[in-house]
């Protein structure tokens, strides 16, 4: 069973809709007990970083998520929460990846980075199994994770930055697979079946 963490993120329903389509057994929850019983965890994310970090503390899930050993997929803000720090609200995040999230410079390109952009797969990854390099994914964000050693894909919007990170059991994607048509569904399927 997959646990989708419910902390008020805007895209929870859309992630659940894809899991329904894939006929995956899942639960939308913020209870530690449910997370313990799940095989994998999805951390969705639409919202503001510091506000969301507070929510995770209030739900008593912060330490739990840092130390977990089962596969975790963070989406959009969920990926940024897996990093150490975010410029958005100067938030101290989960710190699974020793990375910082920065705000796009509007001199480099429009902010938010909104719409469909091609990603370049730079490392072999189970998440991208069967997904063509240079596929279009849907993005909607104002903060980004700079390129780093955990990157498995990158994208260009004024600068080239990291759009997926992986380390051990932790995965993060900056785009919204639940809103990226067929390739997005494939990526979520890969997480469920291969990771």
């Amino acid at each position, binding site marked *: 069973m997959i646990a989708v963490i419910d902390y008020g993120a*805007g895209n929870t329903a859309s992630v659940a809709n894809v899991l329904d389509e894939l006929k995956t057994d899942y639960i939308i929850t913020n209870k530690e007990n449910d997370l313990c019983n799940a095989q994998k965890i999805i951390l969705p994310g*639409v919202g*503001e970083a510091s506000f969301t970090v507070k929510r995770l503390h209030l739900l008593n899930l912060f330490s739990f998520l840092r130390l977990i050993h089962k596969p975790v997929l963070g989406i959009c803000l969920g990926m940024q929460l897996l990093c150490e720090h975010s410029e958005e609200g100067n938030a101290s995040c989960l710190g699974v990846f020793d990375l910082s999230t920065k705000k796009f410079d509007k001199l480099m390109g429009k902010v938010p980075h909104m719409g469909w*952009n091609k990603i370049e797969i730079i490392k072999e990854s189970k998440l991208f199994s069967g997904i063509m390099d240079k596929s279009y994914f849907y993005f909607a964000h104002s903060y980004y994770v700079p390129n780093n050693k955990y990157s498995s894909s990158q994208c260009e919007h004024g600068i080239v930055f990291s759009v997926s990170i992986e380390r051990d059991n932790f995965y993060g994607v900056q785009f919204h697979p639940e809103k990226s*048509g067929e390739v997005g569904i494939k990526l979520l399927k890969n997480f469920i079946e291969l990771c």
Partner: protein
Amino acid sequence: MVAKRIIPCLDVKEGKVVKGTNFVNLRDAGSAVELAERYYLEGADELVFLDITASSDKRKILIELVKEVAKVIRIPFTVGGGISELNDIDNLLKAGADKVSLNTSIVINPELITKASRQFGSQAIVAAIDVKKNDGRYQIFIKGGREAVQLEGLAWCKETAERGAGEILLTSMDRDGTKSGFDVEFLSQITKAVSIPVIASGGAGTKDHFLEAFKNADVDACLAASLFHYQELEISDLKQYLQENGVQTRK
């Protein structure tokens, strides 16, 4: 580089599409859900739903529609029409909408943009702006174009961006329904003045109109309704044409 977007717009009333459509093989010609799915499969990059009932007692029907739409499409969509409360926005986003478009409510209460973008993120807040050219200046209209207000077009666009709107949906009331092309002149003033994405609306009639808006006004997306509803233009043909003419699109 982010691709230029093509956005079909659906006017809905109590869950049904109100502008007629020529789609003969829909089980229910007025079904917003079926039309949404069709556009998704045809390669639309995004959809916009404008609820023209826009009264609070009908809000529940709209929420149900949003839930149904979110079940069948895997592309982002925006919902607008009569939204004036943070609570409305929260409910629509939780039902599966990606963005809300705000028009009259933000003119009356500009602080709503600030509050909403802080709570939900700028990417979820679209400033919908209706303008009409009057003696060489662009005047803002609210309440579905029925009421003029004392706001100048470009100044209001800048203010919405500064307050945290994530996107501007600019509708030219002069061009709307005329099929004479987008208001490229005003759109290019806006794209130069703000650093958030701009969606052109009002006036789409031919493929060249889209090309012109992307190339000459540097808009990020173009929106059209009847052109797609009546199948006067196929999304795939339009995208192919744009690509052949140097505009990057998805597929």
